[in-house]
């Protein structure tokens, strides 16, 4: 088990290093950091001095090392646009994105899994057909279009929910949360549903297809041959076997949720990291882009590791394999 974890951790580290390399390349070689930091009046001599002082003439490997070192200390330099430390900018906006991602994932899971189970067990029912049709539409609608439609219906036409912003937030330590205020809760509904809709569709289809696969297996056939009740078979055996791979895939999806948050945050002007990243892309603000990249990579990699760990705990076959590895 330990060897298994160590192997996974090393793989994760490799990915992070590669991403760091890409981020560093961006940071150092795309555009000129000096030009971004100084005004037009600075003379060439002063620029050269600055270049030396910042260590921009050192060998690339050294600069990369320094970059990684700084990154580990959460120092990503200063944003070209806002002239503030990148880490502060990101830190300020991180809670908003995390909360949004979390609420949307919850929404998707709580609705998606039962829907998936239903459509797998009741293949001909009208509800199943309806759900499957709606899910097909759900996959085909881009996230931003869903957001716009929801805004149009609930904010513009019905006027019951806000169309932008986070509402009132409460500061708890270094975290700001919108979940403790009425306006905050109302504000998170539409963005969470928008972000959660495509996840819901995915989860529902995944649960359905996995469950249908499981129901075709020999052990289910044998369970039927032993006279177990439908309830025991569907919910005792089939569901458990279905959820194991589903958990893995859902866990891996969390990464893309954070990415799609960019779109949702843009549509709803939600003050999160995603919106920050987008503005950075629009304005070629390299430090922010690089930092976001690394941060997101770190999150993805951690999630992957946790999912692997979870899988090992749940599936007894892997536990034994890992032990003998």
């Amino acid at each position: 088990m330990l060897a298994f974890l160590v192997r996974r951790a090393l793989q994760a580290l490799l990915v992070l290093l590669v991403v760091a390399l890409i981020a560093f390349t961006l940071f150092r070689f795309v555009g000129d950091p000096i030009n971004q930091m100084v005004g037009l009046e600075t003379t060439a001599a002063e620029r050269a001095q600055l270049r030396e002082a910042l260590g921009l003439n050192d060998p690339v490997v050294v600069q990369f090392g320094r970059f990684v070192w700084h990154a580990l200390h959460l120092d990503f330099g200063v944003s070209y646009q806002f002239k503030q430390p990148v880490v502060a900018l990101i830190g300020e906006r991180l809670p908003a994105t995390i909360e949004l991602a979390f609420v949307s994932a919850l929404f998707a899971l709580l609705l998606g899994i039962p829907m998936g189970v239903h459509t797998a067990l009741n293949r001909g029912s009208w509800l199943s057909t309806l759900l499957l049709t709606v899910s097909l539409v759900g996959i085909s609608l881009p996230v931003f279009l869903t957001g716009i439609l929801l805004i149009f219906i609930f904010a513009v036409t019905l006027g019951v929910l806000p169309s932008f912003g986070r509402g009132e937030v409460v500061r708890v330590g270094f975290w700001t949360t919108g979940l403790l205020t009425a306006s905050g809760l109302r504000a998170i509904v539409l963005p969470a549903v928008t972000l959660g809709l495509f996840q819901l569709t995915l989860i529902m289809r995944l649960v359905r297809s996995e469950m249908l696969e499981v129901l075709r297996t020999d052990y289910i056939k044998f369970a039927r041959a032993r006279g177990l009740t439908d309830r025991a078979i569907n919910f005792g055996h089939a569901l458990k076997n279905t959820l194991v791979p589903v958990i893995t895939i859902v866990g891996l999806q969390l990464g893309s949720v954070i990415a799609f948050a960019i779109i949702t945050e843009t549509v709803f002007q939600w003050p999160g990291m995603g919106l920050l990243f987008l503005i950075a892309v629009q304005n070629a603000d390299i430090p922010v882009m690089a930092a976001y990249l690394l941060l997101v990579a770190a999150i993805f990699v951690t999630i992957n590791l946790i999912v692997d760990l979870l899988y090992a705990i749940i599936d007894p076959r892997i536990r034994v394999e890992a032990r003998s590895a």
Partner: protein
Amino acid sequence: MTKTLLSVRNLRIEFPTRRGTLVAVDDVSFDIMPGEVLGVVGESGAGKSLTGTAIIGLIEPPGRIGAGEILLNGERIDDLPSERMRRIRGRRIGMVFQDPLTSLNPLYRIGHQLIETILTHTAMDRTAARRRALALLAEVGIPAPDARIDNYPHQFSGGMRQRVVLALALAANPELIIADEPTTALDVSVQAQIIALLKRLCRDHRTAVMLITHDMGVIAETADRVAVMYAGRIVEIGAVRDVVKSPRHPYTIGLMGSIPKPDVDTPRLTQIPGSMPRLTAMPPGCAFHPRCPQAFAPCAARRPNLKPHGNAEVACWLFEPGAETCG
């Protein structure tokens, strides 16, 4: 006279497809007496497994029973509502399948799977059920049952797994076990053990067995009677000793000839030329006639039915009373 345990009458299993209805099992009839071992032998695709699956009521759509009856202790079970059929499964008819690895849910300990089955069919409490589970494991020859009852399926070897499967099938003490190729997926060395175990268990519990296999050797060892199936039909059925020593149907003769006998010096094993017809291209008359070395006029015209001949029944024009034969 002892009452027949299982009676299959004119069973027909068909599959509607867009190319027409395919008949996979065509007018099959046989009886099984309590405690008897009936072997059902034939090539892959002959319809043996389907027959077994139909008896236990697990035919998957679009397959369906097109005609015929299945009676358990005189009562029809082929047209029961699903809940009543479920109660028969496991409790009165059990079934084991070919691959023990895929037959067991990998995420549950075998103790859990055993206890669950026991609790479904009896009124015991958990402690009693666990005791019974341990007893079953001991009976099927699992060493140190106390330790192993909490193991997962993948922690057992192939042979041990099949023992667990047998324990599960016997958990509720059914009157009939349908064993569908129970040894095919096992090592040769283990096969004999499992067959011996099956024999012993069924003798001890007075369980009848429908032993489905393509391995004539296993049948010869284990069965009391044997039914030879070909292309969805029974071509010969009788006591094992009779059918093995003096096969009558040309197909059975071919099958017997293809078994290597260690004590007999055979220059070559017989090989039946050609292969079993596909369901979509069933020959008229007797299904075997294109491959039959003794085929003659009536064979292509009309289908022969099972008629008694000596101690067995044969479906072949060669044995039709009054038919002229050349050999």
